């Protein structure tokens, strides 16, 4: 490998990269260390290693927080909404990109504006509506908003991607007598795998950490998700740091594992999805 870059440039580059490395590894390390301290020790020794390693924070947090079923709920919400977002975005994206209709600019535009909406902006109307529809305290009442929130980005990415699939593929299939749903299932969906991966990743991280909607739309403990459980432990007024950090570590680890497993797909997937605007 040739090294054309000058020495000062390389020094600068490496220092930036090392700063990032330190700033990333340290918080993770600090969090794990802190989760093995008693709260008393943490308050006088915030940044050092534990002087006495406490293992009980994890089982206590798991038990008091009822993390077992929260974990399962989180998986249901994450997987369920991600599957639906990917499927619905691909199918609508296909229609927007490959079937001519006068409705497209309006419908597609309505999704694109959705990228600019945040959950807080629709929280109160959404709760009023969910109540009126009898959907509070149901799983579907949580999944539907998650699906709706994931869709703007999804439709934007999928439409752009499917546009880049040559029209001739769709046409020749039409000539062979294939219906549009058939073309979607046998041609578009397989070809759009990269963008589907990107979308899935974006949606998984988003839904896994989301707490405001699920907190507002459910009141039963049996329907809440992990972030809501974690927030029972954390915040400015919580009285035990050790358990708080154990709870936070429980929430963070699945995402780190997810990243480790899908690291390569993330790069490839985004490569496919992040097409020019």
């Amino acid at each position, binding site marked *: 490998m040739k090294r054309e870059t000058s020495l000062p440039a390389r020094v600068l580059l490496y220092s930036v990269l090392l700063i990032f490395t330190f700033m990333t590894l340290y918080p993770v390390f600090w969090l794990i260390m802190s989760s093995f301290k*008693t*709260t*008393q*020790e943490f*308050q*006088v020794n915030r940044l050092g290693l534990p002087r006495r390693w*406490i293992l*009980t924070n994890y089982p*206590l*947090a798991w*038990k*008091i*927080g009822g993390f077992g079923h929260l974990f399962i709920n989180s998986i*249901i919400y994450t997987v*369920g909404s991600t*599957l*639906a977002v990917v*499927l619905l975005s691909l199918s609508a994206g296909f229609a927007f990109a490959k079937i001519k209709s006068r409705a497209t600019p309006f419908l597609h535009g309505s999704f694109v504006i959705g990228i600019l909406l945040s959950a807080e902006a629709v*929280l*109160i109307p959404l*709760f*009023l509506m969910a*109540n009126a529809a009898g959907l*509070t*305290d*149901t*799983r*579907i009442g949580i*999944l539907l908003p998650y699906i709706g929130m994931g869709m703007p980005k999804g439709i934007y990415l999928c439409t752009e991607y499917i546009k880049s699939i040559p029209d001739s593929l769709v046409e020749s299939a039409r000539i062979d007598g294939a*219906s549009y*749903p*058939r073309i*979607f*299932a*046998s041609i578009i969906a397989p070809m759009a795998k990269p963008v589907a991966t990107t979308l899935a990743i974006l949606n998984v991280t988003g839904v896994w950490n989301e*707490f*405001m909607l699920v*907190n*507002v739309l459910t*009141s*039963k*403990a*049996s*329907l809440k998700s992990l972030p*809501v459980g974690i*927030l*029972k*432990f*954390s*915040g*400015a*007024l*919580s*009285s*035990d*740091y*050790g*358990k*708080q950090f154990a*709870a936070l570590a429980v929430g963070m680890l699945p995402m780190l594992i997810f990243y480790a497993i899908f690291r390569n797909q993330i790069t490839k997937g985004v490569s496919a999805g992040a097409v020019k605007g």
Partner: protein
Amino acid sequence: MSFGKSVLRVVAAFTLLVSLFLVGASAAAADPIVLRVLYYFDATSPGAQRELTEVWEAFDKANPDIKVVREDLFNEPFHQKTEIYAATGQLPDVIYMWPGGRSSTLHTKKLVKDLAPLLGEARSEFSEAALAPQAAGYLAELPIGITLTHVLFANQKLLKDLGLTIPKTYEELKAMVPKIKAAGKDAILMGAQDDWVMQSCLYSMIVGRMLGDAYVDKLIEGTAKFTDAPFVNTLKFYKQLYTDGVLSAKSLQTPYNEVNGLFASGKAVFMIDGDWKVGNFLTDITTGQALIPPEQQKGIVMTVFPEIPGEINHRTSSSVVGVGFGMNANIPAGSEKEKAAWKLIMWLNSPEVQRERLETGAAFPSRKGVTSDRLEPLAQTRAKFYGEYGGTYVLDNVLEASVYLPINVGLQEIGLGLATPEQVAANTQKAYDAWKAAQK
């Protein structure tokens, strides 16, 4: 024409998924009276596990005819949920609430009922101060305790090492500052990054000392103005604390709980906070550790701020009834549901529950005669503290939210040098006028 088997399959799979999720949500039909409860639950508190079994599960066992559906939340998510319930008229039957402050909505919109008629005979079991009318003028929640929001904690050993004694007057305190600073210590610690802290733990006491409750009542009625000299003078004195170096602007960027460890390790001679802070220093039953071990707790003195020049009330703190449980105003009077809800509220205020809270330092009992022989030295000091000092109003408990917010933020602005006392007073008066106008 063929619509593609695969699409049908996908649709079928999706329907199946959806229906699967729906099944999990169906609730069992219930014969017993169902009580929905919104509870503020600090899952990290030392007594958390015990509380779940000894208070809540025990209630379920003792009352098979009542089914409690509890929603546990903590910190901001709790307040979010309360506001959402209040906004949409979906309030649970029993709800954990503050006597004012963050529960303003419940009080001002009268969403919870007056508990005094339900209390009846049992009234005599509680200390009268705990049953004082709350923000909306009635007993909206039955407090689990009483709180003095201002305490001057002093590290006796550090004082002695520096050759100092607990100051009697503000001038004495001011004179101590250079000596404390020279020793590399801070004078007074406060974790006042959040804006409620300065107001609750310090400024309310200053207003109580310099003006008294009667004058604050006049401010509330509108017969006195926040822009009048007396109120502005309290802000001027507060500003003086920074000019004299008694308080440091550092307090305003110190996270609330960070001071615990700093005070315990002797970083400062004094700390100003609420009486509840004591709980953080006692032995934690889950770990057996204490931030300040019992033998050293004797060296911690709990007192109040020294005499302020021109004060009319002497040696007072600011006090407020503690948090407690309220009941949804929509529950019909005399109904079975009301009886069940009241049973639960009384259960949560039983002498046993209050004793446990006393021991863990969570709250000082609102019931008469709740004591324990298992109190650590600092908890004993705290118990005595209540007898020694009277309390004046805590501002966020008596003023409207829209009126105390400019005070909360203004206190931070004064400390940071961003606003003058006159400006803060003017902003507060403006907010008051706007609130008053909206009442008509």
